């Protein structure tokens, strides 16, 4: 148990010190992007890795968070803090309503239904021009202020997003090591047996879906306040698939997979932007889709449990043994 906390605090320390050591706005902006995606993937990992349910529609919640806060803060002058919370509440509500029929489905059908949901929401962003600005985008989203402190430069925003990511990781970690976490994992383990010990499967699927929607929504809201301009294409179905790739690359069975997967994804796409034009001088954005498509296939074949699982295999550690180790128990096991 203490070992588990140690990792978390080391991670926090690393995050805290990074901007003091590295003075590059470019690197900070990359880390901020990683932060947004980590927040989304944190919720998604709980949904996919622990409860074993797929979603190909989380770009929708990312977008709902972004547009809600943009609309309320820019058009109606709300404080961004309030509009971010409003976005999270709306996302939670939509997730709940959509989840009730959707989670009666399993496997491929669930994947398709969530994909469909994402496409519908994307179309709404495009067509409700009076609110969203349509394909022209939404301009002039204000930056976030805390008293006189404005999160307008990269260094400040870096701390803001990573504090949120850190808190959400803590929250998820607490969930995992509790009655609720075991209930979620039991769904992935065996639905028949969860039923047999009195676990209301539908309720837990919905709860974790709502939680993952809130994470995605807050990430999207913060993203909107960071870039100050959004348009529907930032929230299309491709992004949902990228989220899936991040979760799988990082490893859906560990909460750290969210951070690792997001980092690998963002760093690789930055690298691609540098390298590909050198090789194919007239390549557009499509190479990214091809590359990550191949990456997904390769990961699923050779490391279906992601990088964190592969790393743990190498270091001879296994997730659940660190969850509850006999050492932490004080003489429980012989």
């Amino acid at each position: 148990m203490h070992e588990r906390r140690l990792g978390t605090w080391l991670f926090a320390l690393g995050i805290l010190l990074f901007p003091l050591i590295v003075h590059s706005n470019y690197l900070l902006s990359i880390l901020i992007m990683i932060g947004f995606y980590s927040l989304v993937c944190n919720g998604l990992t709980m949904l996919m890795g622990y409860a074993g349910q797929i979603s190909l529609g989380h770009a929708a919640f990312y977008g709902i968070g972004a547009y809600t806060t943009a609309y309320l803060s820019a058009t109606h002058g709300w404080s961004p803090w309030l509009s971010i919370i409003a976005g999270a509440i709306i996302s939670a509500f939509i997730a709940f309503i959509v989840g009730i029929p959707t989670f009666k489905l399993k496997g491929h059908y669930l994947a398709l239904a969530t994909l469909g949901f994402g496409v519908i929401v994307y179309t709404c962003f495009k067509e409700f021009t009076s609110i969203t600005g349509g394909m022209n985008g939404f301009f002039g989203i204000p930056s976030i202020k805390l008293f006189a402190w404005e999160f307008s430069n990269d260094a400040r925003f870096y701390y803001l997003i990573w504090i949120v990511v850190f808190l959400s990781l803590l929250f998820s970690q607490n969930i995992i090591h509790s009655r609720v976490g075991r209930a979620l994992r039991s769904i992935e383990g065996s639905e028949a047996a969860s039923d047999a010990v009195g676990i209301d499967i539908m309720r837990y699927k919905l709860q974790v879906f709502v939680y993952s929607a809130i994470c995605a929504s807050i990430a999207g809201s913060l993203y909107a306040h960071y870039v100050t301009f959004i348009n529907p294409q930032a929230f299309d179905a491709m992004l949902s698939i990228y989220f899936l790739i991040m979760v799988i690359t990082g490893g859906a069975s560990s909460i750290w997979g969210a951070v690792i997967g997001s980092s690998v994804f963002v760093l690789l796409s930055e690298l691609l932007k540098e390298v590909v034009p050198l090789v194919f001088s007239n390549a557009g954005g499509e190479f990214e889709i091809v590359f990550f498509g191949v990456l997904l296939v390769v990961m699923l074949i050779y490391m279906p449990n992601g990088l964190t699982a592969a790393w743990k295999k190498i270091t001879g550690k296994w997730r659940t043994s660190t969850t509850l180790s006999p050492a932490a128990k004080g003489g429980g096991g012989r």
Partner: protein
Amino acid sequence: MKRNGQVLLTVERITKQFGGVVAVNDVSFDVNKGEILAVIGPNGAGKTTLFNIVTGILAPSSGTVRFSGTDITGKKPYQIAQLGMTRTFQNLEVFTNMSVIENVMTGAHRNMKTSFLQAGLRVPSVKKEEKAVEEKAMRCLEKVGIAHLAYERAETLPYGNQRLLEIARAIAAEPALILLDEPMAGLNDEESRRLVEVILQLRKEGLTFVFVEHDMETVMAISDHIVVLDNGVKIGEGTPEEIYRNKAVVAAYLGEEETVC
């Protein structure tokens, strides 16, 4: 024929049809508190269908099931489990993605309170509850004799121990009744003996068991009461001695035991 004791489970005139096929036909029986009741019958007799109706996986076409005074007909499996009826599975359904003790802790779900928000914020009560449930899970593992494997990964356990783990998980829920679906299937003699000991010990502690079983030796050895099905119809019930003497049962089932099993 009338047994003494308090009725825990009542199966009353249960019929289940699948299209034109009548899988269970007008079957009734009672299970008394503290008793070990076996449901036997040849393959296709309707035992599994009956089992699935009692646990709520299937809804009966007609008839009612009552458990500690509550009508549970048509209730969902998790709702029935929450009332204090748990089960084990013929084809083992341990949570392979957890350690042994976590499996058992999951079994205690119904008597715990932590909600999603409380868990995420790790309020003080959660820590206390976690500690208590871990100790309880350890006691359940001790009862079935696999406490030394508590921190192993569940899927690494051999078959016989996985079945014991399912029983530990079932008793962690502090149920009144445990249903065992062919508990002896796939076990060797040594494992079967251990399992019988565990079941008898738990019965002594006040638990009630209903089980479906092919292994006649075990059935005759540990059952207090036996219900015999054939072609969906109850053709007899009674103590093991009565079943031996029942001509209809012997003709339908015991007489052709060799060919059936």
